[in-house]
């Protein structure tokens, strides 16, 4: 947890973490083709910035919840890599015992309380987690991550309202990648609709910026977490970002034409890793050796995780019966 002004160390930490996550996600994408990770998978490549920026302001006893696209959040918050990979392989040792797959991750040991697959589903649940923090007079806060698409679900507004009424220590963390599956914003949200204005209209402090911009993402995350921690009131963050691969699955689907080349090129030229490198360089540190180091360490981590995952036993259906009731 960091509440002081952003330092070069923060930049390096940010950089290391996004490189690690991208390396992991790329490894998953490559190995997905072997058809052994048999579950729908929504990769975070391109969108690592927001997840890392916010998580750097959190400690293990702060809570986070997320959605179908949660790998980056899980990892940034400190989730166990081997257990995540084992979950993709449908093993008993997976972080959800093989029951949930990529869309249902959890690691309570680091405060990652759960990600679920129904759009908007965890938003009000996070309000309950935040209310528990309020009731128990905890100093911790809760962050719920979701896409701009989830703001179209009514439960988003309902939760803004209750968070405001009850002064919950809750951050609504919106990653706006402009798409819901293949659908652009136009048929979904009026150009005169503004997510931060909606939250402000509920009496909630709201911040907006570019999630691929390291300074902006870190500054906003710091401002928001500081505010929520101190004021014990909710806050909404909207960070723009972009996903590089298809909505679901390991491939690039730029050829099917739902996004313009211009748009894709713009965002790739504004890649969070490239941006972070530049920022670090401007501070006088060469990022390349750090990048290489992280990549190598992560590859080792990945190999271990995949090895352990593939060695682990499968759950039996008899075991899943016992998960129906506690």
């Amino acid at each position, binding site marked *: 947890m960091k509440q002081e002004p952003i330092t070069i160390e923060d930049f390096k930490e940010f950089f290391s973490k996004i490189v690690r996550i991208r390396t992991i996600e790329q490894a998953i994408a490559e190995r997905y083709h072997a058809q052994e990770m048999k579950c729908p998978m929504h990769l975070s490549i391109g969108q690592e910035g927001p997840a890392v920026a916010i998580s750097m302001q959190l400690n293990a006893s702060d809570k986070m919840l997320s959605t179908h696209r949660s790998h980056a959040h899980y990892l940034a918050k400190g989730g166990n890599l081997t257990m995540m990979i084992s979950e993709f392989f449908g093993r008993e040792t997976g972080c959800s015992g093989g029951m*949930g797959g990529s869309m249902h991750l959890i690691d309570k040991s680091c405060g990652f309380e759960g990600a679920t697959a129904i759009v908007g589903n965890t938003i009000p649940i996070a309000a309950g987690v935040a209310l528990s923090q309020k009731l128990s007079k905890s100093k911790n806060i809760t962050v719920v991550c979701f896409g701009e698409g989830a703001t179209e679900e009514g439960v988003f507004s309902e*939760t803004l309202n209750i968070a405001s009424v009850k002064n919950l220590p809750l951050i609504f963390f919106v990653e706006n990648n402009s798409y819901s599956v293949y659908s652009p914003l136009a048929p979904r949200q009026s150009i005169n609709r503004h997510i931060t204005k909606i939250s402000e209209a509920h009496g909630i402090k709201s911040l907006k910026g570019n999630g691929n911009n390291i300074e902006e993402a870190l500054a906003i995350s710091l401002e928001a977490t500081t505010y929520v921690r101190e004021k014990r009131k909710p806050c909404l963050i909207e960070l723009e970002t972009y996903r590089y691969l298809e909505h679901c699955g390991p491939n690039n689907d730029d050829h099917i034409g739902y996004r313009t080349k211009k748009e894709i090129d713009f965002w790739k030229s504004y890649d969070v890793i490239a941006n972070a490198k530049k920022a670090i360089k401007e501070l006088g540190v060469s990022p390349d050796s750090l990048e290489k180091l992280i990549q190598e360490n992560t590859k080792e981590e990945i190999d271990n995780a995949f090895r352990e995952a593939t060695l682990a036993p499968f759950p039996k259906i008899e075991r899943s019966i016992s998960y129906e009731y506690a």
Partner: protein
Amino acid sequence: MNMLNKNSVKELKQNKRINNFADGIAAAFFDSMRYDPTVLAFGLGATDPKNIFGTMAGLEDEFGNERVFDTPISENAMTGMAIGLAISGYKPVLTHQRLDFSLLSIDQIVNAAAKWYFMFGGQQSVPLVIRMIIGQGWGQGPTHSQALQSWFAQIPGLKVIMPAFPKDGYNLFRSSIADPNPVIFIEHRWLHQMSWNGEGRVVSPTQLGKSNQISTGSDITIVSNSIGSVYSHHAANILKKYNVGVEVIDAFNLRDFDINSISKSVAKTGRLLTVDFSHQFCSIGTEIIAQVLPLNFADLKIAPERIALPNFPVGTSFNIEKDFYFSTIDICKKIESMLNVTFPNIDDELKEYQSSSKKRFDGPF
């Protein structure tokens, strides 16, 4: 804002204020919250002057507005919030004045609460009670009277509990709150006036059971729940006078009824009737019959039958309502036909019970 003062809280503690089923629910709330500081109680109207037909009276005064509170009209978010509390060490109880309103929160109930423990591999249970009241009569009409207990019972991961008698109401509510799973706790509004004096309140709730046998008999087995059990109980009493033995099993745990007791009873009586205040189609009585068949096929003297509500909504008009809902008399007549006998002067015998069961809810609420 609360109509009760500290004095009546004291009266509640001493059973002095407990006169009926509704008070029993209030007592169960009270005791659960007293003995377990993690229990929370909220819902639309929870702290208003009427306190959900009195069932939450005095709670805010006693336990404060952090544990007992009113909410916005946002059923889906409130259910999600309850789940979030439940996975964070609390035991929330969310109340809906009408079951119908819970339909706005089905995503949270079915996709989240019911599956959380399962989909995260048994790591985190969801000790949550969603209390729903079925309002029927006085023109509640198509959208304020739905009895969807059989519908909720179809969902894996939910427990559905529907008490019949006041003391069971108290005990089952306590057990539901203590249970580590999401429990849909359904009260039929007509039961709220059944009398009870609060005797038998306990410090520690027992584990949720499956069913109670409420009468013995060797001619026919009835499996029922909630107000259906009350009527069946009346029917059993009346038919004693005709030397007909009706064994009534109150299967209050709708997804987890005690099939062994039921099967044993059917082995003895050879006849099965299910009585159930939900639409008949795919009702819980239907499931009971299907489960009994492979176990007792050879024992059955006649085909099992069902009494339930018609398979269409209820119209508001009183003239519709009076034919829509069945009562003790319909159970007696069904048994008459199943046993192929006649009960002379049964209408006279019924009068006493009829009037009691006619003491229904008269509006406007």
